[in-house]
């Protein structure tokens, strides 16, 4: 059975006086992996943040399993952009993963041995157990991203939001992350990923949402991932080259 996990109605938000989201409406079904694609400044990150209440919305409504975020948040995992935190913070990889569990541990309590084990298992899944006690600044970019993914896995959520998890990572990390995403999907979890690389969309994602301040197209990848939709979303100054199911997007201004 597939039911609606997310329902967004007429969502609008502004960022520094510019309206970056305008009447965004869409629905996401359970057990799908959706890529959110669009040009720079299209409001992809803002969309995720607004849905999670991290950014104020102007109008509209967001429901998770029919409830507001507040009552659903225990079932939602969030992977922020890697660059959003200070990797010189005095802590190690295992500790960062354990942070994913803080919401469930409760007030006035420290993580238990069981919590640490859970975190360790998540690190193992990402192939990072050897780095558990490594200071986080001594990890490579790809390893840092794996730690972030492990933290989300430890949260054991039903619905995941990931902000550019594949940006600037090495090939083996990209492979590891995609294996995990497929595993999440086969376990019936729902994943939304802000994605920048159009070439890999058909291979990695079963749904795609074209966003440029508002939704240009949304649906199953094989139906909506067309050159026409890409061109409309990315605007006139983009040239695209289609080769079979490969798309290369170039900005003519670069």
């Amino acid at each position, binding site marked *: 059975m597939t039911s609606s996990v997310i329902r967004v109605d007429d969502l609008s938000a502004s960022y*520094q*006086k510019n309206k970056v989201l305008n009447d965004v409406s869409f629905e996401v079904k359970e057990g799908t992996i959706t890529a959110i694609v669009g040009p720079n400044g299209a409001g992809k990150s803002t969309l995720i*943040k607004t849905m*999670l*209440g*991290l950014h104020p919305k102007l109008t509209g409504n967001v429901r998770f399993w029919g409830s507001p975020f*507040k009552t659903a*948040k*225990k079932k*939602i995992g*969030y992977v*922020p952009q*890697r*660059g*959003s*935190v*200070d*990797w010189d*913070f*005095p*802590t*190690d990889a295992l500790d*960062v993963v354990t*942070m*994913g569990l*803080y*919401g469930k*541990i409760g007030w*006035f309590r*420290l*993580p238990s041995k069981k919590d640490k084990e859970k975190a360790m298992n998540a690190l193992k899944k990402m192939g990072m157990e050897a780095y558990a006690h490594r*200071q986080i*600044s*001594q990890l*490579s*970019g790809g390893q*840092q991203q794996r730690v972030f993914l492990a*933290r989300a896995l430890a*949260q054991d959520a039903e619905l995941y939001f990931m902000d550019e998890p594949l940006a600037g990572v090495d090939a083996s990390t990209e492979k590891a992350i995609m294996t995990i995403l497929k595993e999440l999907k086969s376990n019936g979890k729902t994943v939304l990923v802000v994605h920048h690389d159009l070439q890999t969309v058909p291979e990695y994602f079963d749904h795609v949402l074209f966003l440029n301040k508002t939704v240009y197209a949304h649906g199953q990848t094989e139906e909506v991932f067309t050159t026409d939709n890409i061109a409309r979303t990315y605007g006139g100054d983009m040239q695209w080259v289609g080769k079979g199911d490969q798309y290369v997007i170039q900005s003519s201004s670069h």
Partner: protein
Amino acid sequence: MTYTMWIILTASLVGLSCGLIGVYLILKKQAMMADAISHTVLLGIVLAYMVTQQLSGTAMLVGGIFAGILTAFLVQSLNNLKVQHDASLGIVFTTLFAIGVILISTSVGNVHLDVQHALMGEITFVPFTTMDIPLIGSVPKATAILALVLIVVIFFIIAFYKEWKITSFDPALAASIGIPVIFFHYLFMTLVSVTTVASFDAVGAILVVAMLITPAAAAYLWTDKLILMLFLSGGFGIISAVAGYWVATWLNTSISGSMALMTGCIFFITFLLSPKHGLISRWVRPAEVREEA
């Protein structure tokens, strides 16, 4: 206890509480917030005096908390109105401090509350104003208040250890899993304010900044573990306080100035010797290839 011992104890309490709070100022990258609050608490103290007509410790603490939260709130509000964060800080704290200075000289001129004292502190006078505490006996007022503030600071650091960690490292994740990030921001600003007010008598507004920032910044260079950073920073604070007192007696100069100088010395030694970031280890070891985020 002798006169000297009271002064050293008071100074150590300042060093310890500022050192602990300072760790989170450094990690949250809000070191300059300490500078702002250390100035604006003056306004809070003056207002507290104008309301209660006396210089009691409690009124000063309440006034300081008010001023600290007002500062944090105004800085945030200006920032939301697209004024750059550092600019908002500069605007808010100079304005509030100026109001405090004007009120001191116009409304409360006849009290023992002057700008010189507020900025530099005068720890040598601390042992003269005492209060009686049951079971312990006669204790300098400033020392008693500092001890109380230290207990409060340690209590909150322990009680919300994991909340401070996650809101400092990744506020977005913290908010997404339901930790009240804004509440903790203002709670933290309250702790900075009470620590500052309590340290006021001893080291004054300007030098409290040195005690808040420098030991923690040095500790940051020594360790990769938050808990160790807290111990080191607190320890550096105490060492600076004690060493500063001895240097001041030896050279017959300002005690608070010497303490601040000692924090600087500790930082300088750290800068040379620290295992990871120190100059010497950089010469000895070849530069590591590290991917920048």
